[in-house]
């Protein structure tokens, strides 16, 4: 256990960051390593500074706190700070240390910090590499919210892909390759996850390894028995299985 907990504060409102920093100033054993106002900066800062703990706001421009958490690697301990109480369940499902409802008192923050301190020392004591957030992926998949955008990360660069700009998805081992107007991006998710969470009036799984955005279809032709070849406006050609073709026909 290091002698100091290193903290990054992420909130798009500067006064909200000030408040957390002021509260933390008087508490021994805590060091504010950095502050940032949006998810893009936050990713880079977390990668550079490798903090132990994040104070993370949920509603922020462009990518929200949950979406940031999805692409963070490594994942520090998280204390959410937000004025929305409807996200509490989701936050705890993500194994957040605590969930502070704005406005909160210094005592409430100290309580949360104490929990984090305990979790951190347990983690170091057992030299257990797997953080409490490692099963995060699975839990996000349980969330039944329909996707409006997909957040991907390449190194320290985040790309936000609106679902309507996705051409098709292709399975790639443990990842899914997202082919879109913005280029090709890998995402650590399952095809099943995307099949369930992409708007199903727009996306169809035409094959074990392909999910297609029907608004980019340019043409369909019979390839061989039970297989159709679907050409996209992007120039790509995808094969549809018999069952996939049936699903596609229902949707069109």
């Amino acid at each position, binding site marked *: 256990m290091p002698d100091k907990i290193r903290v990054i504060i992420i909130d*798009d*409102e*500067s*006064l*909200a960051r*000030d*408040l957390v920093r*002021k509260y933390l100033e008087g508490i021994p054993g805590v060091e504010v390593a950095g502050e940032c*106002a*949006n998810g893009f900066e936050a990713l880079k800062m977390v990668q550079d500074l490798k903090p132990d703990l994040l104070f993370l706001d949920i*509603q922020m*421009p*462009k990518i929200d706190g949950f979406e940031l958490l999805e692409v963070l690697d490594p994942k520090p301990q998280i204390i959410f700070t937000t*004025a*929305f109480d409807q996200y509490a369940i989701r936050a705890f499902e993500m194994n957040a240390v605590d969930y502070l*409802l*704005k*406005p*909160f008192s210094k005592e409430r923050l100290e309580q949360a910090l104490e929990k984090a301190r305990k979790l951190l020392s347990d983690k170091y004591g057992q030299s257990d590499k797997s953080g409490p957030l490692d099963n995060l992926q699975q839990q996000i998949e349980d969330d039944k919210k329909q996707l*409006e*955008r997909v957040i991907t990360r390449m190194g320290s660069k985040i790309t*936000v892909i*609106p679902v309507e700009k996705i051409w098709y998805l292709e399975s790639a081992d443990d990842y899914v390759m997202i082919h879109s107007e913005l280029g090709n991006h890998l995402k650590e998710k399952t095809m099943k996850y995307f099949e369930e969470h992409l708007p199903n009036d727009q996306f169809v799984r035409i094959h074990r390894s392909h999910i297609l955005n029907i608004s980019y279809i340019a043409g369909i032709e019979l390839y061989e028995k039970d297989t159709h070849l679907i050409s996209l406006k992007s120039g790509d050609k995808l094969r549809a299985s018999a069952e996939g073709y049936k699903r596609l026909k229902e949707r069109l």
Partner: protein
Amino acid sequence: MIMRTDRQIIRNLKDHLELVYILMWVVLGAIHFFLLFSGYGVNARAAIADSIVFNALFALIGAGLWNMVRYSDLQTRKLGELAFYHLSGATVTIFAWLGIGYLILNNILEQDFYYHVFLKDTLSFRIVTGVMFYALLVTIYYLLINFRELKEKSQREAKLTGLLKEAELNMLRSQIRPHFLFNSLNSISALTMTDPARAQEMVIKLSEFMRYTLNLPDSMMSTLEKELHHVELYLDIEKVRFSDRLIFEKSIEPGSETWKLPVMILQPLIENSVKYGVYESSDPTRISLEARVDDGVLDIRVGNTYDPEAITKKGTGTGLKNIQGRLLNLYGTSTLMKIKSSENYFEVHLRIPKYAR
């Protein structure tokens, strides 16, 4: 004035319906007696008995008809059905009326020979009278029922309008979304440590802002000046939270401040601008408000820049629909709100006429 007395008479009539009914038959009975006595030369005793027996009988049967009419709703029954219903109703009524009447009168005026002849001779005339009475009564009953239904309907509608207004008020109040309040309180909490004077200023602004939404005028109308003040309070508070990320520009033509407009019509528009502009962009968002009087109409434009790359969670458009609905209700036309949207700019254009309808 005349209207009022008419209504009063109708109300009094309705309160003493039974009395009116009895009175009507007394008058009819008197006319009946008078006709027999001086018109047909029937002796006084027989004329009185004839008048009392036939009128009292019809009054009794007629009272029963009320129930029959009540359950034969004009709107739900077919015409043929209704005709058959009343044809048989009239037949039974007249048969019972004359049958019982003749039986009684034949018995009590046994000795009066002339009267017996008179009774016999006037049978066809009495049948015609009976049919007329029947038709008259049924018509009056239907009118009465109709009148009652109309009144109930207007009462229901008045109640509904009241409920609607209440719902509208609640809707307007709840638009001050709780997270705005909690985030503002969080900012105040921070300012108490760093800048108590500003914290105090913000508390006062927030209070004034809340008070306005709690004391909306009954008329639901306000002036541009008041609405503007309210909106600026809101923006001042948001500006404390977002500082440089929010830029507000207004251009108000002198003379337009006194113009009347629906209360809380600008607030949702500005809130939308903050929600889809400021909340979703890390760069400064420009919110503009222009107002001028043009061609006898107050012309208002509320606009905001927005980040084209922000994939905003799509709104449901209820806020704008509500405004459209309120304008339609008040001014009777749906052409008063227009929306303009370009790649990075969104604008709502309102035209507020001088008078509500």
